[in-house]
Structure formats: structure tokens, C-alpha cells
């Protein structure tokens, strides 16, 4: 059983669907970062670049 992948930003476990494919985007439930599946074997996740919304204040 392959180990459960962890989010590269907050180290929380990331639960992938069985149907996950490479370069698919998934969201980490703990820190809501967008993650990109870089490879399946070995399983690698990387933070997907996100457009920084400027809060204006």
C-alpha cells in the first residue's frame, strides 16, 4: 500500500482519488493550497502557482 502523500506546504495528508492523473490539480484540505500531481510513481505533489489576489488595503 503506497504511503499517503503529504502536502508540501503544510505536511497534512492529502487524500487522492483512485483516478488521479499526472498534472491534475488537487486542493489540500488543511491549508487550501492548490497542489499539482507531478508524478504518480513515486507520488510527488508540488504547490501549483496561484495568482495572488491583492487585497487592496
Amino acid at each position, binding site marked *: 500500500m503506497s504511503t499517503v502523500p503529504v502536502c*508540501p*506546504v*503544510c*505536511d*497534512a495528508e492529502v487524500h487522492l482519488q483512485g483516478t488521479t492523473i499526472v498534472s491534475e490539480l488537487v486542493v489540500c484540505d*488543511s*491549508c*487550501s*493550497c*492548490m497542489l499539482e500531481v507531478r508524478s504518480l510513481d513515486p507520488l510527488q505533489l508540488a504547490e501549483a502557482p*496561484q495568482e495572488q*489576489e491583492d487585497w487592496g488595503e
Partner: protein
Amino acid sequence: MDRIRTAIVGASGYTGGELLRILLGHPSVEVTQATSERLAGKPVILAHPNLRGRTDLRFTSLSSLAPCDVLFLCLPHGTTARQFDTLAQQAPRIIDLSADFRLKDTVAYEKWYGGPHPAPGRLGEFVYGIPELHREEIRRARYVATAGCNATASILGLRPLYAAGLVQPGRTVVDVKVSSSEGGGVPSTASHHPERAGVIRSYKPTGHRHQAELRQELGLAADEPLHFSATAVDIVRGLLVTAHVFPSRPLQEIDLWKTYRAAYGTEPFIRLVKTKDGVHRYPEPKLLWGTNYCDIGFDIDRDTGRVVVLAAIDNLVKGSGGQAVQCMNLMHGVPETAGLEFTGLHPV
């Protein structure tokens, strides 16, 4: 299982009212008495209109206090300690929401509360009431002194870093933003609406006494400075702690996630809040109004390595009445979250 018979001494104030609200909704509790000298004989809803239709309980005088299973004391600082011996006869377990029995060090008490402790002999019998820090002691305790509201959020926010030895001593700056209900129900010129509305008031740039509890619970050396400031803002409930921490070694965001998840990962009332999207990306007090949550978040200054810890609570719930009930649950073997499940409102 019989209901836990509870009484609230000094129930006409905001803290007493919040306790009443929570206890009346608690599955395993019966509220036998709510005392108030000022409003004795009057219905509790006179002081607590949010309880209309929920109870026809009337305030009683302290003199008519009958024995019960647990007594919640919501008396002014100093009064509790002076009357403790008589009150202690009424119940095997007592939870004190005043500041009288929070500090173990009577010298600290005298410094911050302006006079010798009225009942120093009793101090050793009390456990400091933050369950996330002292759960097993509270389970076995007869007497618990619940923590101050600013102290609760500051301690919960800072403790994991201090416990992991990640903090340069003497450099932490705690800058808490507080709301008007922290001042209690007694009006003053300072709380008069035309004066209080719209302020960003530096009411305690230095010398705020809640720092004494931080020193105790974070285990600061006697001579280690702690820099604490409080600013009152224009809301009624809630507080936010912004703690500026200078780490003993450079830290990455993931180090903080690991440290805080290790400390609080299984805590029912602590949520780690740091997201990259959405509107409320860090702990936000107004989302916690009426809940027993302490939301904790953090950020790292890429230029300087400074760690900014953010902690938000509802000062009347996790900072007062809710935490008292959380302790009561532990002391009576009832599920820790009983009566404390409200999840908060949004938008609010």
C-alpha cells in the same frame, strides 16, 4: 446519569449570562441557582434577554445559596478569595472565573492586582483552567481557576513555539486587539457609546495584568521580559492576538504547521487557520462569536524571519464561560464538547 447540579454566583454580568446560556443548553446539566444581590428576585431574562422563553429562573441572593455539584464563581476580583471558605462549603467542585486563583505566585498577584492575596493558602488547591494545557490535572481537580480571555488566546497561540524551544527569550511582542464586552457590564465614561464607538484605543500600551498568566504558563524566567500591549477596537465580542515572535533558528512555514499540528492536531476546540484563498485567510474573531473555538494561524516574514502568530477567540466563550464549561465537562467525566457544539455564524 443524573444531571450535574450547577449554580452560578454573580450571574447578572456578561460572564454569568454566557454561562447561563451554555449551561441551559447543556444535555447533562441542571442550573439550580443564579445569584445576584442587585437583581435578587428578578427573572434572569431581565439581565439576559437572549434567554427569553428558555428559562423562568429568577436571580437569588447569595445568602440563600443551596448545596450543588459544581459552583461557578463570577464575582469581582478579590471578592472571590475573601468569601471562598464559605462558598466552598456549598459544592465539592468549584470553577472560579475571576483572576483570584489563576496565579500561583503571590508576589505576581500582589504586583498585578494591587494588594496581598486574600487567601494564599488556597492557591495550591486550584488548577489553571486551560484544558489544552492541563487536561489530566483538570480531570482530577476539585477547584479550577479559568484563564483570562487575553491570556487564553495568547498562551494557546504561543505555547507550541515556547514548548519546542523555538523562541528567542525576551523578544516576543504580544499586541492584542480587544472588544468592549471584556470590560464587563458596569458602564463608565470610557465605555459610554459616544466615546467608545469607532475608537482604536490604546487603553493598555503597557502594564496589562493578563501578561502575568502568560509568564506563568509559558514558563518565562523571572527576569525574562514579555512585551504586551492591548488596543480596544470597535466591536462588542471577540479578540485577536498578534504575537511577534523571533525564532531561535530560521523556520519555514512547514515547520510551523508541524509544530502546531503536533501540539493541537487532535484538539476539538483548536483550528489551524492559514489559507491562500477566500476572504478570511487568518483567524477572524467575528466568525467565532458564541463558539468555544480558538483559531490559530501564523505567517513568516520572508525578509526577517519574524514569526507572526495570530490567535482569535470569543472572549466570553473560550475566554470565559465556554472554557469554564469545558473544564466542568472534564471534571465530571462528560464528553469535553458537551454543550459547546455551536459552530459560529457567517456572514455576521
